[in-house]
């Protein structure tokens, strides 16, 4: 019978980002700064099926960050609004199923603050440290 030890956690972080929120030089900078983090481009965060994120979590990815556009500034009109609620629902389901919901997070780009994603990635790394995840 499967047991709780069958759910390994590796020190891996994946960022699902909207192609309009993170692009060009900005994306390059983040990739240079965090070579171990995977960046996955989406046409809109509203296009992300949370099952993909959850599947990654149970397969051992340490943390998932979903990075979308500012709330009133979606290129596709309202995709990020749906994404926000969906990620919240996904966190609740994950919690009910016994997967730590804090390993999944949703952050938005802030036009006045370029450090949002960097800070979130560092916070996730600290979180993995505090959970005792080995490299």
């Amino acid at each position: 019978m499967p047991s709780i030890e069958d759910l390994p956690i590796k020190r891996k972080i994946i960022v699902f980002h909207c192609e309009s929120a993170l692009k060009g030089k900005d994306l390059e900078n983040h990739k240079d700064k965090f070579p171990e983090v995977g960046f996955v481009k989406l046409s809109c965060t509203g296009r992300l099926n949370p099952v993909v994120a959850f599947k990654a979590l149970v397969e051992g990815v340490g943390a998932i960050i979903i990075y979308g556009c500012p709330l009133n500034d979606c290129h596709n009109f309202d995709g990020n609004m749906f994404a926000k609620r969906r990620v919240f629902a996904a966190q609740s389901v994950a919690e009910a199923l016994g997967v730590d919901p804090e390993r999944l997070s949703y952050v938005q780009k802030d036009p006045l603050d370029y450090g949002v994603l960097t800070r979130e990635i560092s916070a996730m790394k600290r979180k993995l440290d505090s959970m005792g995840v080995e490299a």
Partner: protein
Amino acid sequence: MMTEKTLAYFRKIVKEAIKSGKIAGFLGWREVADMPGKTRAFVATTPEEVDLLVFNSFSRENLSRLLGGKTFYIPELKKGQKFGVMVKGCDSRNLLANVAENKVDRDNLWVIGVKCPGTIDIDLVRSGLDSDIKNITDDGTTLHVEMLDGKKADLVKSDYYDPRCLRCPYTSALEVDELLPDDMPKKPTKNWEKWMESYLQKPFEERRAYIISQLSRCTMCFACRDACPGCYCNTNCIMDYPKLPEPYLQKGTSLASILTYHFIHYFHLSDRCTNCGECARACPESIPLNLITEQLGYMTKTTWDFEPGTSDKAKTPLALYKVEEVLGR
């Protein structure tokens, strides 16, 4: 247990409706021979068959899942004709939710509602007995059990309620065409929100260890999906494709696939689940899936102030957003 008078009245109005051609059939519960403590779904199409219909505290099955979605019980209707169905409180919520999603046409239905007296968890009864049950009757306060080895036992009914029924806030059927008189004994009630809050107070690690140890028994039989009145995809469920795009989804019973399957089911139901408990009831491994659905119900209620199935108009929260959120207030 329905009194004789109400049962006779119920059968009379159904018989009249069938004779006059108002309804093409009536979907209700009937007792099953050799299966004490169980009733099953049954479509009565002639007045004689109506005499088989019953309603008691063993009528646990949710009939609204047979009216739309995976299983479609409604026969071909003549013009102006309807199809009758009987619902408890929780079933009526699922029916309303399905009507809101256009899965079933309410105009084709003639709905009789009952005020539910709470259902008995027959597995709970069985687990406390030495021998299997030969016959079981319920007089409102006591369960009279006759066992296969000839012994008899009288059990206090209030100890054997389905725990979910005790916490159910919607015992009376909503928006029905006819509500049967409420003459059944009242069930004890517990405050659902208080119970949920005290459950959520427990440390996450403890809850996680418990639910994962339970879910690891899952055999991926998909009975919980098949029983769910809210599930949508009929024959197109991703779990039904024999050759799934490996290694994205595997049907094996590794914990990762079990959790992924349950995530798919409960994420799709996260804002639409009415907490009917049908999935927990259907599970052959007796996994307490209601712990998951009740947390989802609590989340939907506290975050979005929405209770699925209480209206046939409302859109679910994941299909909407609020203006305040856009403005970041």
